[in-house]
Protein backbone atom coordinates (compact mmCIF):
# COMPACT_ATOMS: atom_id res chain seq x y z
CA UNK A 1 0.00 0.00 0.00
CA UNK A 2 1.33 3.39 -0.99
CA UNK A 3 0.87 6.26 1.45
CA UNK A 4 0.92 9.96 0.81
CA UNK A 5 0.77 12.48 3.68
CA UNK A 6 0.41 16.08 2.54
CA UNK A 7 0.68 19.16 4.75
CA UNK A 8 -0.85 17.25 7.63
CA UNK A 9 -1.24 18.96 10.97
CA UNK A 10 -2.87 17.95 14.23
CA UNK A 11 -3.81 20.34 17.01
CA UNK A 12 -5.16 19.31 20.39
CA UNK A 13 -7.20 21.53 22.64
CA UNK A 14 -5.69 21.48 26.12
CA UNK A 15 -8.12 23.59 28.11
CA UNK A 16 -8.40 27.34 28.53
CA UNK A 17 -7.01 29.15 25.55
CA UNK A 18 -4.26 26.62 25.04
CA UNK A 19 -3.81 24.54 21.93
CA UNK A 20 -1.01 22.08 21.39
CA UNK A 21 0.52 21.54 17.97
CA UNK A 22 1.14 17.81 18.00
CA UNK A 23 2.04 17.79 14.34
CA UNK A 24 2.63 20.51 11.84
CA UNK A 25 3.42 20.56 8.15
CA UNK A 26 4.01 16.86 7.68
CA UNK A 27 4.84 15.74 4.14
CA UNK A 28 5.76 12.13 3.71
CA UNK A 29 5.35 9.50 1.08
CA UNK A 30 5.83 5.81 1.68
CA UNK A 31 6.25 3.32 -1.14
CA UNK A 32 4.38 0.05 -1.40
CA UNK A 33 6.08 -2.69 0.63
CA UNK A 34 8.49 -0.30 2.25
CA UNK A 35 9.51 -0.60 5.90
CA UNK A 36 9.53 2.87 7.44
CA UNK A 37 10.34 3.76 11.04
CA UNK A 38 9.10 6.95 12.67
CA UNK A 39 11.81 7.83 15.20
CA UNK A 40 11.92 10.56 17.79
CA UNK A 41 11.68 11.49 21.46
CA UNK A 42 8.35 11.43 23.26
CA UNK A 43 6.08 14.28 22.31
CA UNK A 44 7.39 14.51 18.77
CA UNK A 45 4.08 13.39 17.31
CA UNK A 46 5.25 10.07 15.87
CA UNK A 47 2.35 8.14 17.36
CA UNK A 48 -0.08 10.84 16.28
CA UNK A 49 1.18 10.59 12.71
CA UNK A 50 0.72 6.83 12.85
CA UNK A 51 -2.85 7.25 14.10
CA UNK A 52 -3.63 9.68 11.30
CA UNK A 53 -2.45 7.12 8.76
CA UNK A 54 -4.50 4.43 10.53
CA UNK A 55 -7.60 6.60 10.50
CA UNK A 56 -7.92 6.30 14.28
CA UNK A 57 -7.67 10.07 14.51
CA UNK A 58 -8.46 12.70 11.91
CA UNK A 59 -5.97 15.36 10.84
CA UNK A 60 -6.79 18.96 11.78
CA UNK A 61 -5.66 19.99 8.32
CA UNK A 62 -3.97 18.40 5.34
CA UNK A 63 -4.63 15.01 3.80
CA UNK A 64 -3.62 11.41 4.22
CA UNK A 65 -3.99 9.23 1.15
CA UNK A 66 -3.65 5.46 1.02
CA UNK A 67 -3.34 4.17 -2.54
CA UNK A 68 -4.63 7.56 -3.65
CA UNK A 69 -7.79 7.43 -1.54
CA UNK A 70 -8.27 9.71 1.46
CA UNK A 71 -8.31 7.98 4.85
CA UNK A 72 -11.62 8.56 6.59
CA UNK A 73 -11.61 5.97 9.35
CA UNK A 74 -9.98 2.75 10.51
CA UNK A 75 -10.03 -0.26 8.22
CA UNK A 76 -8.91 -3.89 8.52
CA UNK A 77 -6.86 -3.16 5.38
CA UNK A 78 -4.61 -1.11 7.65
CA UNK A 79 -3.70 -3.31 10.58
CA UNK A 80 -2.75 -1.52 13.79
CA UNK A 81 -0.54 -2.86 16.58
CA UNK A 82 -0.81 -1.08 19.92
CA UNK A 83 1.96 -0.72 22.46
CA UNK A 84 -0.26 -2.18 25.19
CA UNK A 85 -1.18 -5.09 22.85
CA UNK A 86 -4.94 -4.30 23.11
CA UNK A 87 -5.85 -7.98 23.28
CA UNK A 88 -9.37 -8.68 24.47
CA UNK A 89 -8.73 -10.13 27.93
CA UNK A 90 -12.00 -12.14 27.93
CA UNK A 91 -11.07 -14.01 24.75
CA UNK A 92 -8.56 -16.82 24.43
CA UNK A 93 -5.62 -16.52 22.04
CA UNK A 94 -7.58 -18.38 19.35
CA UNK A 95 -10.70 -16.26 19.86
CA UNK A 96 -8.65 -13.06 19.77
CA UNK A 97 -7.12 -14.04 16.45
CA UNK A 98 -10.52 -14.99 15.05
CA UNK A 99 -12.14 -11.72 16.14
CA UNK A 100 -11.41 -9.82 12.92
CA UNK A 101 -12.30 -12.82 10.77
CA UNK A 102 -15.68 -13.04 12.47
CA UNK A 103 -16.25 -9.34 11.87
CA UNK A 104 -15.54 -9.98 8.20
CA UNK A 105 -18.22 -12.71 8.33
CA UNK A 106 -15.94 -15.53 7.23
CA UNK A 107 -17.49 -18.97 7.47
CA UNK A 108 -16.70 -20.80 10.67
CA UNK A 109 -14.47 -23.34 8.95
CA UNK A 110 -12.51 -20.79 7.03
CA UNK A 111 -11.93 -18.50 9.97
CA UNK A 112 -10.83 -21.46 12.05
CA UNK A 113 -8.42 -22.60 9.36
CA UNK A 114 -6.90 -19.14 8.92
CA UNK A 115 -6.54 -18.67 12.67
CA UNK A 116 -4.77 -22.03 13.03
CA UNK A 117 -2.43 -21.12 10.19
CA UNK A 118 -1.39 -17.84 11.80
CA UNK A 119 -1.09 -19.38 15.25
CA UNK A 120 1.34 -21.86 13.72
CA UNK A 121 3.31 -19.09 12.00
CA UNK A 122 3.79 -17.29 15.29
CA UNK A 123 4.36 -20.36 17.44
CA UNK A 124 1.13 -19.93 19.36
CA UNK A 125 -0.44 -23.40 18.95
CA UNK A 126 0.37 -24.38 22.52
CA UNK A 127 -1.17 -21.19 23.85
CA UNK A 128 -4.35 -21.36 21.74
CA UNK A 129 -6.74 -21.80 24.68
CA UNK A 130 -4.96 -19.51 27.13
CA UNK A 131 -6.19 -16.08 28.09
CA UNK A 132 -3.96 -13.01 27.51
CA UNK A 133 -3.37 -12.68 31.25
CA UNK A 134 -1.61 -16.05 31.19
CA UNK A 135 0.87 -15.00 28.48
CA UNK A 136 4.20 -13.21 28.64
CA UNK A 137 4.57 -9.79 27.04
CA UNK A 138 6.34 -11.19 23.99
CA UNK A 139 3.61 -13.80 23.46
CA UNK A 140 0.91 -11.16 23.80
CA UNK A 141 2.51 -9.02 21.13
CA UNK A 142 2.79 -12.06 18.86
CA UNK A 143 -0.95 -12.65 19.28
CA UNK A 144 -1.66 -9.01 18.46
CA UNK A 145 0.47 -9.20 15.31
CA UNK A 146 -1.11 -12.49 14.24
CA UNK A 147 -4.57 -11.03 14.87
CA UNK A 148 -3.81 -8.11 12.55
CA UNK A 149 -1.99 -10.12 9.88
CA UNK A 150 -4.60 -12.87 9.49
CA UNK A 151 -6.86 -10.26 7.84
CA UNK A 152 -4.10 -9.89 5.24
CA UNK A 153 -3.77 -6.13 5.51
CA UNK A 154 -1.82 -4.23 2.89
CA UNK A 155 -0.34 -2.00 5.58
CA UNK A 156 0.78 -2.68 9.13
CA UNK A 157 0.99 0.25 11.54
CA UNK A 158 2.92 -0.49 14.71
CA UNK A 159 3.02 1.87 17.71
CA UNK A 160 6.14 1.11 19.78
CA UNK A 161 5.14 -2.54 19.82
CA UNK A 162 8.27 -3.85 21.55
CA UNK A 163 8.93 -0.95 23.92
CA UNK A 164 7.71 -2.81 27.00
CA UNK A 165 9.77 -5.95 26.38
CA UNK A 166 13.22 -6.85 27.65
CA UNK A 167 16.22 -6.52 25.35
CA UNK A 168 16.65 -10.20 24.38
CA UNK A 169 13.00 -10.63 23.53
CA UNK A 170 12.98 -7.34 21.66
CA UNK A 171 15.85 -8.53 19.45
CA UNK A 172 14.05 -11.81 18.74
CA UNK A 173 10.83 -10.07 17.81
CA UNK A 174 12.67 -7.56 15.63
CA UNK A 175 14.20 -10.39 13.64
CA UNK A 176 10.83 -12.10 13.44
CA UNK A 177 9.27 -8.84 12.27
CA UNK A 178 11.71 -8.56 9.38
CA UNK A 179 10.88 -12.12 8.29
CA UNK A 180 7.15 -11.43 8.55
CA UNK A 181 7.50 -8.27 6.50
CA UNK A 182 9.46 -10.06 3.79
CA UNK A 183 7.01 -12.97 3.68
CA UNK A 184 3.69 -11.12 3.88
CA UNK A 185 4.48 -8.48 1.23
CA UNK A 186 3.11 -5.75 3.43
CA UNK A 187 4.01 -2.10 3.94
CA UNK A 188 5.09 -1.39 7.52
CA UNK A 189 5.15 1.90 9.40
CA UNK A 190 6.80 1.34 12.75
CA UNK A 191 6.99 3.91 15.55
CA UNK A 192 9.92 3.70 17.95
CA UNK A 193 12.14 5.86 20.14
CA UNK A 194 14.97 3.33 19.94
CA UNK A 195 17.56 4.36 17.33
CA UNK A 196 19.06 0.87 17.10
CA UNK A 197 15.66 -0.71 16.56
CA UNK A 198 14.93 1.75 13.76
CA UNK A 199 18.23 1.06 11.99
CA UNK A 200 17.80 -2.69 12.36
CA UNK A 201 14.33 -2.68 10.84
CA UNK A 202 13.81 0.19 8.45
CA UNK A 203 14.36 0.91 4.79
CA UNK A 204 14.03 4.56 5.71
CA UNK A 205 13.97 6.32 9.08
CA UNK A 206 11.81 9.39 9.51
CA UNK A 207 13.47 11.40 12.29
CA UNK A 208 10.99 13.62 14.09
CA UNK A 209 11.43 16.41 16.64
CA UNK A 210 8.94 17.92 19.09
CA UNK A 211 7.23 21.32 19.70
CA UNK A 212 5.69 21.26 17.21
CA UNK A 213 6.04 17.72 15.87
CA UNK A 214 7.84 17.97 12.56
CA UNK A 215 9.96 15.79 10.34
CA UNK A 216 13.60 16.67 10.90
CA UNK A 217 15.16 14.34 8.37
CA UNK A 218 14.46 11.24 6.37
CA UNK A 219 17.40 8.87 6.57
CA UNK A 220 17.63 5.91 4.20
CA UNK A 221 19.26 2.81 5.65
CA UNK A 222 21.13 1.13 2.87
CA UNK A 223 22.59 -1.74 4.84
CA UNK A 224 22.15 -5.28 3.51
CA UNK A 225 19.81 -7.59 5.43
CA UNK A 226 20.10 -9.43 7.73
CA UNK A 227 21.74 -6.54 9.55
CA UNK A 228 24.33 -6.81 12.25
CA UNK A 229 24.20 -4.36 15.13
CA UNK A 230 27.97 -4.46 15.47
CA UNK A 231 28.69 -3.67 11.82
CA UNK A 232 30.78 -0.49 11.64
CA UNK A 233 28.36 1.21 9.25
CA UNK A 234 25.48 0.37 11.60
CA UNK A 235 27.34 1.99 14.48
CA UNK A 236 28.23 5.07 12.46
CA UNK A 237 24.69 5.56 11.30
CA UNK A 238 23.54 5.22 14.88
CA UNK A 239 25.97 7.93 15.98
CA UNK A 240 24.80 10.21 13.20
CA UNK A 241 21.13 9.87 14.06
CA UNK A 242 21.79 10.28 17.77
CA UNK A 243 23.65 13.49 17.05
CA UNK A 244 20.71 14.68 15.00
CA UNK A 245 18.30 14.01 17.89
CA UNK A 246 20.64 15.17 20.63
CA UNK A 247 21.56 18.48 19.10
CA UNK A 248 17.96 19.20 18.36
CA UNK A 249 17.01 18.65 21.98
CA UNK A 250 19.74 21.08 23.13
CA UNK A 251 18.92 23.50 20.37
CA UNK A 252 16.37 25.59 22.27
CA UNK A 253 18.62 26.43 25.20
CA UNK A 254 22.07 26.57 23.66
CA UNK A 255 21.70 27.95 20.20
CA UNK A 256 23.92 25.76 18.05
CA UNK A 257 26.87 24.68 20.10
CA UNK A 258 27.91 22.65 17.13
CA UNK A 259 31.41 21.36 17.08
CA UNK A 260 33.99 19.92 14.78
CA UNK A 261 32.77 17.10 12.64
CA UNK A 262 29.20 17.60 11.62
CA UNK A 263 26.66 20.33 11.71
CA UNK A 264 23.36 18.65 12.43
CA UNK A 265 21.31 21.00 10.33
CA UNK A 266 23.57 20.74 7.35
CA UNK A 267 23.62 17.00 7.76
CA UNK A 268 19.84 16.80 7.97
CA UNK A 269 19.28 19.00 4.95
CA UNK A 270 21.84 17.02 3.10
CA UNK A 271 19.88 13.89 3.93
CA UNK A 272 16.49 15.07 2.86
CA UNK A 273 17.91 16.30 -0.44
CA UNK A 274 20.05 13.42 -1.49
CA UNK A 275 18.64 10.53 0.54
CA UNK A 276 22.06 9.02 0.96
CA UNK A 277 24.21 8.78 3.94
CA UNK A 278 27.88 9.63 4.31
CA UNK A 279 29.20 6.40 5.70
Amino acid at each position, binding site marked *: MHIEVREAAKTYYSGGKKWIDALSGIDLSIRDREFVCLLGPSGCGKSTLLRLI*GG*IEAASSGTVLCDGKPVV*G*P*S*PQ*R*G*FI*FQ*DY*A*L*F*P*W*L*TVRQNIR*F*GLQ*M*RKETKNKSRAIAEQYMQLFGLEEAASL*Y*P*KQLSGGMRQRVAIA*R*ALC*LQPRLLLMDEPFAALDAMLRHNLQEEMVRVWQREKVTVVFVTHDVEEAIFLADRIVVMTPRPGTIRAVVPVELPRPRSRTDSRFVELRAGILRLLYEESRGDKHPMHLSESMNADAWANNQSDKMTIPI
Partner: protein
Amino acid sequence: MDAEQRILSGKEAARGGIGAGIGREREQVRSAGGAWRSAAGVAFVRIVSLLACLFLWHILVILNVNWPLQFGNLPHPAAILSAWFTNLQTASYYNDILVSSYRVFSGIALGFIAAVPLGMWIGLTRVGRNTLFPNLELLRPIPLIAYLPVAMLLFRTIEGSIVFITFIGAFFPILISSRDAATRVSPSLIQAARVLGCGPLRAIWRVYLPAAAPEIFTGVSVGIGASWMGVITGEMMSGQTGIGYATWQAYHLLDYPQSIIGMFTIGALGFGSSALIRLAERALLRWR
Protein backbone atom coordinates in the same frame (compact mmCIF):
# COMPACT_ATOMS: atom_id res chain seq x y z
CA MET B 1 15.82 -4.35 71.06
CA ASP B 2 19.54 -4.96 70.57
CA ALA B 3 21.70 -3.35 67.91
CA GLU B 4 21.53 -6.19 65.43
CA GLN B 5 17.77 -6.36 65.59
CA ARG B 6 17.52 -2.66 65.10
CA ILE B 7 19.61 -2.88 61.94
CA LEU B 8 17.49 -5.70 60.63
CA SER B 9 14.21 -3.93 61.23
CA GLY B 10 15.73 -0.81 59.72
CA LYS B 11 16.55 -2.77 56.60
CA GLU B 12 13.05 -4.12 56.48
CA ALA B 13 11.62 -0.65 56.75
CA ALA B 14 14.00 0.50 54.04
CA ARG B 15 12.64 -2.16 51.73
CA GLY B 16 9.44 -0.33 52.40
CA GLY B 17 5.94 -0.68 51.06
CA ILE B 18 3.63 -3.62 51.23
CA GLY B 19 6.27 -6.32 51.25
CA ALA B 20 7.85 -5.09 54.47
CA GLY B 21 4.45 -4.85 56.12
CA ILE B 22 3.55 -8.41 55.23
CA GLY B 23 6.92 -9.60 56.49
CA ARG B 24 6.36 -8.05 59.88
CA GLU B 25 2.82 -9.33 60.14
CA ARG B 26 3.95 -12.86 59.38
CA GLU B 27 6.57 -12.59 62.11
CA GLN B 28 3.92 -11.63 64.63
CA VAL B 29 1.56 -14.41 63.65
CA ARG B 30 4.31 -16.98 63.93
CA SER B 31 5.33 -15.79 67.37
CA ALA B 32 1.68 -15.87 68.54
CA GLY B 33 1.77 -19.66 68.72
CA GLY B 34 1.55 -22.96 66.94
CA ALA B 35 -2.22 -23.01 66.39
CA TRP B 36 -1.98 -20.82 63.26
CA ARG B 37 0.26 -23.20 61.36
CA SER B 38 -2.35 -25.61 60.05
CA ALA B 39 -5.79 -25.20 58.50
CA ALA B 40 -7.22 -27.38 61.27
CA GLY B 41 -5.66 -25.12 63.88
CA VAL B 42 -7.19 -22.04 62.27
CA ALA B 43 -10.61 -23.72 62.10
CA PHE B 44 -10.28 -24.69 65.76
CA VAL B 45 -9.54 -21.11 66.80
CA ARG B 46 -12.50 -19.83 64.82
CA ILE B 47 -14.93 -22.34 66.33
CA VAL B 48 -13.68 -21.63 69.83
CA SER B 49 -14.20 -17.88 69.37
CA LEU B 50 -17.74 -18.49 68.08
CA LEU B 51 -18.52 -20.71 71.05
CA ALA B 52 -17.05 -18.11 73.38
CA CYS B 53 -19.46 -15.52 71.98
CA LEU B 54 -22.43 -17.83 72.48
CA PHE B 55 -21.22 -18.58 75.99
CA LEU B 56 -20.95 -14.86 76.78
CA TRP B 57 -24.52 -14.40 75.54
CA HIS B 58 -25.64 -17.34 77.68
CA ILE B 59 -23.99 -15.81 80.78
CA LEU B 60 -25.49 -12.36 80.15
CA VAL B 61 -28.99 -13.84 79.91
CA ILE B 62 -28.63 -16.20 82.85
CA LEU B 63 -27.29 -13.49 85.15
CA ASN B 64 -30.07 -11.19 83.88
CA VAL B 65 -27.57 -8.39 83.22
CA ASN B 66 -29.50 -5.14 82.69
CA TRP B 67 -26.70 -2.67 82.35
CA PRO B 68 -25.69 -1.02 80.01
CA LEU B 69 -28.24 -2.83 77.86
CA GLN B 70 -31.11 -5.03 78.91
CA PHE B 71 -29.44 -8.30 77.99
CA GLY B 72 -31.80 -10.06 80.36
CA ASN B 73 -34.67 -9.53 77.90
CA LEU B 74 -32.99 -11.60 75.19
CA PRO B 75 -34.01 -15.21 74.70
CA HIS B 76 -31.62 -17.90 75.79
CA PRO B 77 -29.28 -19.26 73.03
CA ALA B 78 -30.36 -22.82 73.86
CA ALA B 79 -34.05 -21.87 73.53
CA ILE B 80 -33.31 -20.34 70.14
CA LEU B 81 -31.47 -23.44 68.97
CA SER B 82 -34.27 -25.78 70.00
CA ALA B 83 -36.89 -23.52 68.38
CA TRP B 84 -34.80 -23.53 65.22
CA PHE B 85 -34.70 -27.35 65.16
CA THR B 86 -38.50 -27.32 65.37
CA ASN B 87 -38.60 -24.76 62.55
CA LEU B 88 -36.55 -27.04 60.36
CA GLN B 89 -39.46 -29.49 60.46
CA THR B 90 -42.08 -26.82 59.69
CA ALA B 91 -43.23 -26.09 56.14
CA SER B 92 -44.00 -22.42 56.84
CA TYR B 93 -40.35 -21.69 57.71
CA TYR B 94 -39.20 -22.97 54.33
CA ASN B 95 -42.09 -21.23 52.65
CA ASP B 96 -41.10 -17.88 54.16
CA ILE B 97 -37.53 -18.38 52.97
CA LEU B 98 -38.67 -19.31 49.47
CA VAL B 99 -41.12 -16.42 49.18
CA SER B 100 -38.52 -13.84 50.24
CA SER B 101 -35.81 -15.35 48.04
CA TYR B 102 -38.16 -15.37 45.08
CA ARG B 103 -38.94 -11.67 45.60
CA VAL B 104 -35.24 -10.80 45.81
CA PHE B 105 -34.45 -12.88 42.75
CA SER B 106 -37.22 -11.22 40.73
CA GLY B 107 -36.04 -7.78 41.79
CA ILE B 108 -32.44 -8.57 40.86
CA ALA B 109 -33.42 -10.05 37.49
CA LEU B 110 -35.65 -7.11 36.57
CA GLY B 111 -33.13 -4.61 37.93
CA PHE B 112 -30.35 -6.21 35.89
CA ILE B 113 -32.40 -6.19 32.69
CA ALA B 114 -33.28 -2.52 33.15
CA ALA B 115 -30.09 -1.14 34.68
CA VAL B 116 -27.38 -2.59 32.42
CA PRO B 117 -28.66 -1.13 29.12
CA LEU B 118 -29.64 2.17 30.74
CA GLY B 119 -26.31 2.45 32.55
CA MET B 120 -24.44 1.79 29.31
CA TRP B 121 -26.59 4.32 27.52
CA ILE B 122 -25.90 6.97 30.16
CA GLY B 123 -22.20 6.16 30.16
CA LEU B 124 -21.75 6.18 26.41
CA THR B 125 -24.04 8.86 25.01
CA ARG B 126 -24.44 12.53 25.70
CA VAL B 127 -28.21 12.23 25.30
CA GLY B 128 -28.43 9.62 28.03
CA ARG B 129 -26.12 11.55 30.32
CA ASN B 130 -28.22 14.70 30.05
CA THR B 131 -31.78 13.40 29.84
CA LEU B 132 -32.17 10.26 31.93
CA PHE B 133 -29.29 10.55 34.35
CA PRO B 134 -30.25 13.80 36.12
CA ASN B 135 -33.71 12.39 36.89
CA LEU B 136 -32.29 9.16 38.23
CA GLU B 137 -29.77 11.05 40.33
CA LEU B 138 -32.68 12.76 42.10
CA LEU B 139 -34.29 9.42 42.89
CA ARG B 140 -31.13 7.59 43.89
CA PRO B 141 -30.52 9.11 47.35
CA ILE B 142 -34.06 8.22 48.51
CA PRO B 143 -33.89 5.37 51.03
CA LEU B 144 -35.66 2.22 49.91
CA ILE B 145 -38.26 2.36 52.66
CA ALA B 146 -39.42 5.79 51.47
CA TYR B 147 -40.44 4.23 48.16
CA LEU B 148 -43.02 2.10 49.94
CA PRO B 149 -46.02 4.47 49.79
CA VAL B 150 -45.48 5.06 46.07
CA ALA B 151 -45.03 1.32 45.55
CA MET B 152 -48.38 0.69 47.25
CA LEU B 153 -50.06 3.25 45.03
CA LEU B 154 -48.49 1.97 41.84
CA PHE B 155 -49.24 -1.71 42.33
CA ARG B 156 -52.53 -3.41 42.86
CA THR B 157 -51.01 -6.25 44.89
CA ILE B 158 -48.74 -6.25 47.89
CA GLU B 159 -46.58 -8.77 46.05
CA GLY B 160 -46.04 -6.27 43.23
CA SER B 161 -45.10 -3.45 45.56
CA ILE B 162 -42.60 -5.58 47.48
CA VAL B 163 -40.94 -6.78 44.27
CA PHE B 164 -40.84 -3.14 43.16
CA ILE B 165 -38.88 -2.26 46.29
CA THR B 166 -36.38 -5.07 45.69
CA PHE B 167 -36.12 -3.93 42.07
CA ILE B 168 -35.26 -0.39 43.15
CA GLY B 169 -32.67 -1.78 45.56
CA ALA B 170 -30.95 -3.70 42.77
CA PHE B 171 -31.44 -1.09 40.06
CA PHE B 172 -29.29 1.79 41.28
CA PRO B 173 -26.08 -0.07 42.17
CA ILE B 174 -26.20 -1.97 38.87
CA LEU B 175 -26.97 1.23 36.96
CA ILE B 176 -24.06 3.12 38.48
CA SER B 177 -21.60 0.26 38.03
CA SER B 178 -22.65 -0.25 34.39
CA ARG B 179 -22.29 3.44 33.69
CA ASP B 180 -18.85 3.64 35.27
CA ALA B 181 -17.69 0.46 33.60
CA ALA B 182 -18.84 1.66 30.18
CA THR B 183 -16.90 4.90 30.50
CA ARG B 184 -13.80 3.09 31.72
CA VAL B 185 -13.41 0.59 28.88
CA SER B 186 -9.83 0.95 27.67
CA PRO B 187 -9.73 3.20 24.56
CA SER B 188 -7.16 0.97 22.92
CA LEU B 189 -9.56 -2.00 23.11
CA ILE B 190 -12.26 0.05 21.43
CA GLN B 191 -9.84 1.24 18.77
CA ALA B 192 -8.52 -2.29 18.28
CA ALA B 193 -12.08 -3.53 17.70
CA ARG B 194 -12.73 -0.74 15.19
CA VAL B 195 -9.51 -1.47 13.31
CA LEU B 196 -10.52 -5.14 13.16
CA GLY B 197 -13.79 -4.16 11.49
CA CYS B 198 -16.17 -4.09 14.46
CA GLY B 199 -18.94 -1.49 14.03
CA PRO B 200 -20.26 0.60 16.94
CA LEU B 201 -23.41 -1.47 17.55
CA ARG B 202 -21.56 -4.74 17.46
CA ALA B 203 -18.94 -3.30 19.78
CA ILE B 204 -21.56 -3.05 22.52
CA TRP B 205 -21.93 -6.84 22.53
CA ARG B 206 -18.40 -7.79 21.66
CA VAL B 207 -16.38 -5.18 23.57
CA TYR B 208 -18.26 -2.95 25.99
CA LEU B 209 -20.35 -5.63 27.72
CA PRO B 210 -17.58 -8.17 28.28
CA ALA B 211 -15.16 -5.43 29.34
CA ALA B 212 -17.74 -4.05 31.77
CA ALA B 213 -18.79 -7.45 33.14
CA PRO B 214 -16.49 -7.49 36.20
CA GLU B 215 -17.72 -4.11 37.41
CA ILE B 216 -21.33 -5.01 36.66
CA PHE B 217 -20.87 -8.07 38.87
CA THR B 218 -19.72 -5.81 41.68
CA GLY B 219 -22.89 -3.77 41.15
CA VAL B 220 -24.99 -6.93 41.31
CA SER B 221 -23.50 -8.01 44.61
CA VAL B 222 -24.10 -4.58 46.12
CA GLY B 223 -27.59 -4.66 44.60
CA ILE B 224 -28.36 -8.02 46.19
CA GLY B 225 -27.60 -6.59 49.61
CA ALA B 226 -29.92 -3.65 48.97
CA SER B 227 -32.60 -5.99 47.61
CA TRP B 228 -32.55 -8.05 50.80
CA MET B 229 -32.86 -4.89 52.82
CA GLY B 230 -35.80 -3.88 50.63
CA VAL B 231 -37.63 -7.17 50.85
CA ILE B 232 -37.36 -7.33 54.64
CA THR B 233 -38.56 -3.75 55.01
CA GLY B 234 -41.45 -4.32 52.63
CA GLU B 235 -42.52 -7.52 54.35
CA MET B 236 -42.30 -5.99 57.81
CA MET B 237 -44.38 -3.01 56.77
CA SER B 238 -46.97 -4.57 54.56
CA GLY B 239 -46.42 -8.26 54.01
CA GLN B 240 -48.39 -11.31 54.95
CA THR B 241 -45.65 -13.79 54.09
CA GLY B 242 -41.89 -13.94 53.92
CA ILE B 243 -39.08 -14.10 56.40
CA GLY B 244 -39.27 -10.37 57.19
CA TYR B 245 -42.95 -10.67 58.00
CA ALA B 246 -42.28 -13.73 60.17
CA THR B 247 -39.56 -11.93 62.11
CA TRP B 248 -41.72 -8.91 62.88
CA GLN B 249 -44.83 -10.97 63.54
CA ALA B 250 -42.95 -13.13 66.06
CA TYR B 251 -41.97 -9.98 67.96
CA HIS B 252 -45.60 -8.91 68.20
CA LEU B 253 -46.58 -12.37 69.38
CA LEU B 254 -43.86 -12.16 72.04
CA ASP B 255 -42.18 -15.19 70.44
CA TYR B 256 -38.70 -13.71 70.80
CA PRO B 257 -36.72 -16.82 69.86
CA GLN B 258 -38.48 -16.76 66.47
CA SER B 259 -37.51 -13.11 65.97
CA ILE B 260 -33.89 -13.94 66.59
CA ILE B 261 -34.12 -16.96 64.28
CA GLY B 262 -35.61 -14.68 61.61
CA MET B 263 -32.71 -12.29 62.06
CA PHE B 264 -30.06 -14.93 61.64
CA THR B 265 -31.95 -16.54 58.75
CA ILE B 266 -31.96 -13.21 56.91
CA GLY B 267 -28.23 -12.92 57.58
CA ALA B 268 -27.63 -16.42 56.25
CA LEU B 269 -29.71 -15.74 53.13
CA GLY B 270 -27.75 -12.58 52.43
CA PHE B 271 -24.48 -14.41 52.92
CA GLY B 272 -25.69 -17.26 50.68
CA SER B 273 -26.69 -14.92 47.86
CA SER B 274 -23.31 -13.18 47.93
CA ALA B 275 -21.64 -16.58 47.77
CA LEU B 276 -23.81 -17.54 44.79
CA ILE B 277 -22.83 -14.34 43.00
CA ARG B 278 -19.17 -15.02 43.65
CA LEU B 279 -19.55 -18.53 42.27
CA ALA B 280 -21.29 -17.24 39.15
CA GLU B 281 -18.59 -14.60 38.74
CA ARG B 282 -15.85 -17.19 38.99
CA ALA B 283 -17.57 -19.39 36.43
CA LEU B 284 -18.35 -16.61 33.96
CA LEU B 285 -15.20 -14.53 34.29
CA ARG B 286 -12.56 -17.19 34.13
CA TRP B 287 -10.36 -14.88 32.08
CA ARG B 288 -9.68 -12.58 35.03
